[in-house]
């Protein structure tokens, strides 16, 4: 497809702008002006609409295809959430920061406050900040809160390490490293969780935090989680909960009850807000009481009369992690999602997400290697090791699935499983969809044995076949030169 710039004709206009009703200002000195206008597209509105509509048709999406992408929780995004967010479009965030401005923002501040309370209930925390703009941003915020906690106790120099299991999301060690910590990685035991003995050996008083995903990226709930928390706390290390897999446990178990001190939640996963082709997400962070003094400012609090006000002058705060109050529009959608589903609805979400994952696991077990064969939570991880004997890798199965109309599962993650195929169906898929997907996966396994070349050639039905990633990395052509 042509780029929008390749369709440009000099002088062609899209929209008409409002006429000016004020005098033309005197011109600025040349030293302050750009020499030439930015070479943006010059297309008619219809050309523009066709271009982006046709581009959109070159995407898979939840609304068009099953998307069993492990660790990403690609559930259906209810349409009323979009309508709800649009209601808040006109409100300027700076209004709340003007003198007396909170009074005119009680709706938006109250919504953020209530969302924080509901997320605190779901996660077992004492207070939530909605400022972090994505899951990884929440991780960084959480680790900075932990750093501030240790610094306040005079332990800034002493606390040097963050411990992560080797099955963790890459963002965990990356976030901790960016916040200034060295990383200790603990291997996974044959029972599918962080090796408890090796963990004990890794722990010492210089550890600032332990970051865990629970259930972990193999989809398994760690039965030793309380013991791990107790060991961490005995070294004054705090427990960080990566909320990527929260969809499995709502109403069943609360991270705060099993010893976690800080959590982030991915609103774009568990709480049904759309992923937008890679964002915007939102990563609110919940903390236990001991960490409240360090929360980012402005902090929304309720005064004695039930009015929402902003706290802006707490000297122990870590400061600010985003320009304003976080990805507010995403928060609106998550709030609407939570009140719409309610208590029973959220429990049902977790139950059926776990049911769907176990159903797929049982059905595919005869055809694919299942390295950790036990009851899983919301996702299950297979290995393409049997198919590899025929020269077929996980990526080839992924590409075959694209031809069959399925977005592939996550492949090659977690890194501890060779040729990993990580399937997270979510609760919103029907049994009929799951059954068809299972059939196609079985067909892929059969094709791997009988006609492996067919998998190596896939995809054949897309506008484009497999792409040369080496060429892209070598040439670094990241901007149209046309």
């Amino acid at each position, binding site marked *: 497809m042509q780029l929008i710039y390749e369709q440009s004709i000099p002088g062609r206009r899209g*929209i008409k*702008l409002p006429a000016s009703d*004020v005098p033309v200002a005197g011109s*600025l000195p040349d030293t302050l002006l750009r020499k030439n206008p*930015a070479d*943006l597209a010059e297309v008619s509105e219809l050309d523009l609409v066709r271009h982006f*509509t046709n581009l*959109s*048709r*070159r*995407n898979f999406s939840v*609304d*068009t295809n099953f998307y069993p992408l492990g660790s990403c929780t690609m559930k259906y995004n*209810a349409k009323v959430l979009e*309508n709800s*967010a649009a*209601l*808040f479009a*006109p409100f300027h*965030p*700076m*209004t709340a920061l*003007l*003198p007396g401005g909170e009074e005119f923002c*009680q709706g938006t501040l109250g919504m953020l406050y209530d969302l924080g309370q509901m997320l605190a209930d*779901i996660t077992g925390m004492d207070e939530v900040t909605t400022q972090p703009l994505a899951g990884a941003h929440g991780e960084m915020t959480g680790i900075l809160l932990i750093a501030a906690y240790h610094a306040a106790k005079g332990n800034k120099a002493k606390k040097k390490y963050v411990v992560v299991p080797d099955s963790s999301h890459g963002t965990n060690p*990356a*976030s901790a*490293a960016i916040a200034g910590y060295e990383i200790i990685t603990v291997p996974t035991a044959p029972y599918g969780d962080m090796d408890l003995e090796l963990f004990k050996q890794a722990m010492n008083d210089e550890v600032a935090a332990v970051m865990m995903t629970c259930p972990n990226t193999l989809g398994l709930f760690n*039965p030793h*989680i309380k013991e791990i928390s107790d060991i961490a706390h005995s070294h004054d290390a705090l427990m960080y909960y990566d909320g990527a897999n929260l969809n499995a446990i709502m109403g069943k178990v609360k991270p705060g009850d099993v010893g976690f001190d800080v959590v982030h939640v991915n609103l774009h996963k568990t709480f049904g807000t759309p*992923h*937008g082709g*890679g964002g915007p997400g939102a990563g609110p962070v919940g903390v236990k009481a001991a960490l409240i003094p360090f929360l980012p400012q402005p902090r929304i609090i309720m005064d004695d009369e039930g009015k929402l006000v902003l706290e*802006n002058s707490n000297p122990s705060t870590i400061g*600010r*992690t*985003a320009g*304003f*109050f976080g*990805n507010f*529009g995403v928060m609106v959608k998550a709030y609407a999602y939570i*009140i719409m*589903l309610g*208590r*029973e609805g959220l429990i049902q*979400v977790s139950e*059926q997400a776990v049911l769907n994952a176990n159903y797929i696991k*049982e059905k595919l077990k005869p055809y694919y290697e299942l390295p950790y064969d036990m*009851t899983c939570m919301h996702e299950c991880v297979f290995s393409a090791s049997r198919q590899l004997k025929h020269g077929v890798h996980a990526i080839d199965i992924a590409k075959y699935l*694209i031809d069959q109309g399925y977005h592939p599962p996550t492949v090659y993650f977690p890194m501890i499983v060779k040729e990993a195929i990580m399937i997270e169906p979510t609760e919103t898929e*029907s*049994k009929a969809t799951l059954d068809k997907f299972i059939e196609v996966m079985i067909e892929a396994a059969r094709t791997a044995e009988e006609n492996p070349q067919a998998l190596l050639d896939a995809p054949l039905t897309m506008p*484009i*076949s*497999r*792409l040369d990633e080496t060429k892209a990395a070598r040439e670094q*052509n*990241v901007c*149209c030169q046309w």
Partner: protein
Amino acid sequence: MNDSNYCPHTPQEIQEMLSVIAINSVEELFAPIPSELRAKTFNLPPGLSEFETYDKMKAIAGENSDMLNFIGGGFYDHIIPAVVDHLSGRAEFYTAYTPYQPECSQGTLQALFEYQTAICRLTGLDVSNASLYDGATACAEAAMMALRITGRNRIIVDGCVNPFSRQVLKTYLFNLDVEIIEIPPLDGVLHREALERLLDDGVAAVMVQNPNFFGSIEDFSSLAEQIHSVGALVVASVYPISLGILKTPGEMGVDIAVGDGQSLGNPLSFGGPSFGFIAAKKTFIRNMPGRIIGETVDKNGKRGYVLTLQAREQHIKRHKATSNICSNQGLCALRGLIFLSSVGKEGLVEIARLNRDKAEYAKARLAELEGVRVLQATTFNEFTLFLAKPAEMIVAALLKQGIAAGVPLSNYYDDSENAMVVTVTEKRSRKDIDVLVKELEVALCS
């Protein structure tokens, strides 16, 4: 089982699935969670229909007041063409995930490649990533990028940079061995002599903003040469609408340009989501944070797009990654691209001029008022006023009239009790401006 909740199984289907798993109840699936750890309370209210939910959201929105906005400070009230909502609202865009599988994600990938192109052309720099979270975090990411590139550990920040961006920068870096030096503003612009005294070969980067928080426009070209002469980088935060007419970071010799993309087709929405952008000279591409889209070909030689230079990223490099970023603000960046493509090359120039014309009109009218002095500076669509009374008092009084008249500077700068910044975008009519002038006059007299 209660009603749908977007969980489609019938009781019959659930039974069939349980028998495949060879268990009797869904509850058995939660057996791996030790019983003593199970949640004892769960206090959320009962669920609602989508109609009740929407009504409740409408009631919440109704508790906020709509203002006649003359405030900015990073977020701006600009026109948004109808095509932006319609095209970015296509579910194929907004319900897709990060384009890890390029063959079924060419829509997102090509759009983000076009977005990167737009950002490069807007800023006059060589390379852009596929967006960051927001303008404030983009400043912090640019600073960290400069620390990586130079191997130095000192950042100098112009005090005229948006105070929220400066706070985010401090928060990002407080646990690292990095020194941040802020230069207090001099009459609403960078205090150049103070900067010259601080420049030496320990400085990783100097961060400036154009137009700055006071609204002042500066040319940093000669300064960039001075900064480069000590081996430091220039990071500039810019306001994309102003780049319709203002000298680009590229033309000034800036190494890394950042900013908030909200003004490009994203609603105010109480502060988000918007997107941050970052563009740089080509030699710095491997030190850029976040996703980058690159052009390549498929095995038949057909042009296509992929996530490239992924070896910088956390999902490959874990703790050695250039940043921890996973998701960004892809859909908001798409809105930015659609906005820029809709207004087009000439349209952006006209919008920029319209902003300046309206602001200059407002500035001249306000300058005529008794008890108002305008800060002497060249400005775009924001300018600083000194009032005869405390600005906080005046702004609070006008809020009650439904006018957000400006941002008082007292919270952000010393000795600025009477100062405030006024923003005038193309959306404010002459009549709106005249209302502001009249109400401000009344407030100053009372």
